[in-house]
């Protein structure tokens, strides 16, 4: 339970950071921001890697594999798409 | 086609129908231009400048007889002949009778006053150009005759209050008068019967004077004002009296096409003004908006200076001629495309402006004024 509170603390602090950082983003960058943060939400990939690699059961491995694929699509696609969007903002 | 530009003969007229600057646009399309010697002198365009732009100079009036088109400012029929085309101001709506004399010469006359107020005719709209100059000059005249200054100045010798200017009738000239008076630092208010004008007045930074009059149908489809009955004008005068009394300068431009200008300022209202005030009556050529202004004169009555000078555009002949010439040139290029005028064309611009032809008055509105004659 001690641990839970610490974890919660981290959660709360991260929310604060998120809030402060995001409110500074100008409206034009909202779309790239959405897609960029979407890519970050693919962080579940880390969990997926563990699930698929620890090979407890076939089921976990299968679930893990699917999760890895899903999360990787999210991560790779997300960062690339964001990059493409941002390229439009470059000085011509 | 050969265009001839006579020297204007109307007394005090200093404008000229074509200026050297527009000649290339005409000669480039195959027109030739013949200028009566000294025609542009009074406006600041010596013969030499015309020659430099490719015109020939006619030593006398008689040498113009051969031209196909006579371009003039104040139309005067002298020397016209059958087959000739004449373009200029002929004042057909106020003096339709004189038009019959013009028609009798057999020439085809185009009246610049009758230019339709449609978008594509804007660059031929000489009434607008001349009104622009008249509006500006009205304010300069007022500033000259006013015993005060226009702008507010706060100085070590006290504060000079700004002149209060009231503009009645806010067409082209009225708007320009407002803008000019505002530039000089006057406090400007204005009134017009047409409801659309309110926003326009504000768009040049002046205050619109709201009078509780019914003005719903005051604008015709061409953007001109409709005539109102005398009871309307009476009520308008009553309501305006207070504003007029408080003003240092009143500039009137109210007009209704084809009618005598409405009387909006009576002698009684003039008496109510402070000594030294100035009224500039731009409607004077249509009879005046003030019943005691004297055409062509500056008079003082009841301590108020009444400016009734005529033909203000001619007091800035350089720019007035430049604008008029642009209008005329654009018009000629429009009606005589390909070096020939198609009198049967259904073109609205040609139809509306063509006044006389083959000895007849052909313009419908003028014919109507003449009693269908």
């Amino acid at each position, binding site marked *: *339970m001690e*641990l839970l509170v610490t*974890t919660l603390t*981290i*959660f709360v602090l991260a*929310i604060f950071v*998120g809030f402060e*950082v995001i409110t500074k*983003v*100008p*409206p*034009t*960058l*909202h779309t790239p921001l959405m897609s960029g*943060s*979407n*890519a*970050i*939400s693919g962080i*579940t*990939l*880390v*969990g*997926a*890697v*563990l*699930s*698929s*690699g*620890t090979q*407890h059961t076939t089921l*976990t491995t299968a*679930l*893990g*594999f699917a999760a*890895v694929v*899903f*999360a*990787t*699509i*999210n*991560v*790779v696609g997300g*960062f690339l*798409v964001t*990059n*493409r969007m*941002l390229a439009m903002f470059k000085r011509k | 086609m050969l265009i001839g530009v006579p020297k204007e003969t109307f007394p005090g007229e200093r404008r000229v129908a074509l200026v050297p600057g527009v000649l290339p646009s005409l000669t480039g399309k195959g027109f030739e231009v013949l200028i009566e010697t000294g025609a542009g002198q009074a406006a600041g365009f010596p013969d030499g400048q015309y020659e430099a732009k490719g015109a020939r100079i006619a030593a006398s009036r008689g040498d113009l007889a051969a031209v196909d088109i006579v371009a003039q400012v104040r139309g005067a029929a002298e020397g016209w002949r059958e087959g000739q085309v004449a373009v200029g101001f002929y004042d057909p709506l106020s003096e339709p009778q004189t038009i019959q004399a013009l028609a009798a010469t057999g020439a085809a006359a185009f009246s610049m006053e009758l230019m339709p107020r449609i*978008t594509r005719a804007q*660059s031929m709209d000489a009434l*607008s150009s001349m009104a*622009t100059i008249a509006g500006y000059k009205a304010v300069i005249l007022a500033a000259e005759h006013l015993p005060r200054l226009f702008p507010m100045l706060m100085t070590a010798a006290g504060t000079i209050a700004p002149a209060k200017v009231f503009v009645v009738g806010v067409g*082209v000239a009225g708007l*320009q008068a407002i*803008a000019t008076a505002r530039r000089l630092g006057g406090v400007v208010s204005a009134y017009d019967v047409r409801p659309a004008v309110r926003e*326009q007045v*504000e*768009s*040049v*930074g002046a205050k619109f004077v709201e009078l509780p009059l019914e003005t719903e149908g005051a604008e015709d489809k061409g953007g001109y004002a409709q005539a109102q009955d005398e009871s309307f004008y009476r009520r308008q005068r009553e309501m305006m009296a207070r504003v007029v009394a408080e003003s240092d300068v009143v500039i009137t431009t109210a007009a209704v096409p084809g009618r005598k200008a409405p009387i909006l300022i009576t002698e009684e209202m003039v008496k109510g003004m402070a000594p030294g005030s100035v009224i500039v009556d731009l409607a004077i050529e249509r009879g005046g908006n003030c019943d005691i202004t004297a055409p062509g004169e500056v008079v003082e009555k009841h301590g108020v200076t009444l400016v009734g000078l005529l033909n203000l555009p001619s007091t800035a002949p350089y720019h007035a001629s430049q604008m008029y010439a642009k209008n005329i040139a654009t018009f000629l290029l429009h009606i005589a495309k390909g070096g020939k005028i198609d009198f049967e064309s259904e073109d609205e611009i040609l139809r509306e402006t063509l006044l006389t032809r083959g000895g007849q008055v052909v313009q419908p509105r003028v014919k109507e004024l003449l009693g269908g004659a």
Partner: protein
Amino acid sequence: MPPVLINLAYLVASALFILGLKGMSHPRTAVRGNLMGAAGMLIAVVVTLLDRRIISYEMIIGGLVLGAAIGAILAIRIQMTAMPQMVALLNGFGGGASVLVAGAALVEAQVAGAGFETQMTVATALSALIGGVTFFGSLIAFGKLQDLITGNAVVFPGQHLLSALVALSAVGLAVGLVLRPESMEIYWALVGVAAVLGVLATIGIGGADMPVVISLLNSYSGLAASATGFVLQNNMLIIAGSLVGASGIILTQIMCKAMNRSLANVLFGGLGAAPVAGAKADDVYGGKVKSASPEEIAILLDSARRVVFVPGYGMAVSQAQHAVRALAKLLEDKGAEVIFAVHPVAGRMPGHMNVLLAEADVPYEALLEMDVVNPMFSQTDVSIVIGANDVVNPVARTDPQSPIAGMPILDVDKSRTVVVIKRSLSPGFAGIPNPLFAADNTLMFFSDGQKAVNDLIAAVKEAS
């Protein structure tokens, strides 16, 4: 690799995510920000691969390669215009991954038989619920935007009631899972119910409101990741997830505010946007008019080398001349070339624009006549049309029947981008619609002229 080092690396990755998002606060740093985010992700994944608990890499590598290939192809192939549905789709995958990971963790715990911590089961239930809603909701959003299913709001009687019931059963199942964590069935049932909920929540929302929904789902996917973090006791997941969660919520709020609607209204309001403008105008404008915020325009202006102002009657009506001059000066100070294109009949009297611009002290040299300026538009980055309409109406060139046919106009449509400032789509003096407003390179900025320009000034100052 010892767990301490792994955790330290996770901390570094978390910091990179934060810095990455911070980078998004300016166009100049945004690209770098995105790269920092990606770098954080790379570190996180590489470090995880070094975890001692991993015994086989085949599945992992296979999954990574497959996923990366699909993701890259999707990202590269997609049309710029299809970005919204792309984001929706990717987002869905993220939510799906959460469901799967939480499921796997549950199975593991069951297999290990070491007993279930309440904290962990609660988190697992939340993962399943939020992840499921995200996955299926995103799929529906994708389908709508990609025109695979109707873009209109699908509404049927009793929809709200049904949704409420489904939501209730979801809660019930979640509680069930916490009480009986050893039952995999409850888990999958929960996922199934979450799917229905996701579909129900999204299907009733019109195409125009989709961006709001996507943003909300984005937030959910973050929360799902966070929940997974609680499941796996992984701080990095918690941090990254909550960053995304916060970002999504804020964006959703901002969007709702911009649409002048509450979130509730968007989610439960049903029906799409109301139709705009009147009869004939509809053919010209119908759905093709794009409007922009001052900030977006400011970004364009920030990098513009030549800006042409085209003033018209609306500038006069709103007396915006002083503001316009201030903006012009600001842009000049930033190194742009600024020109005023004055049409001969702009306004309502000859010289109307001259009077006003002179009042505002715009130097005469900056005013160019139509003939001079028209050939310059093709080398113009941004034309700002402020309260002009007829004088920039291309119909004058194309439709001989139009009342303004034959009037020479200012060829603003030739410039790279046209910004039109006016209050509405109403016509000008001539009373006819203006196809310029619906052109591809036109952005409308609907506002009173003076206010609009002042807003632009503020935005340009911000942007730099």
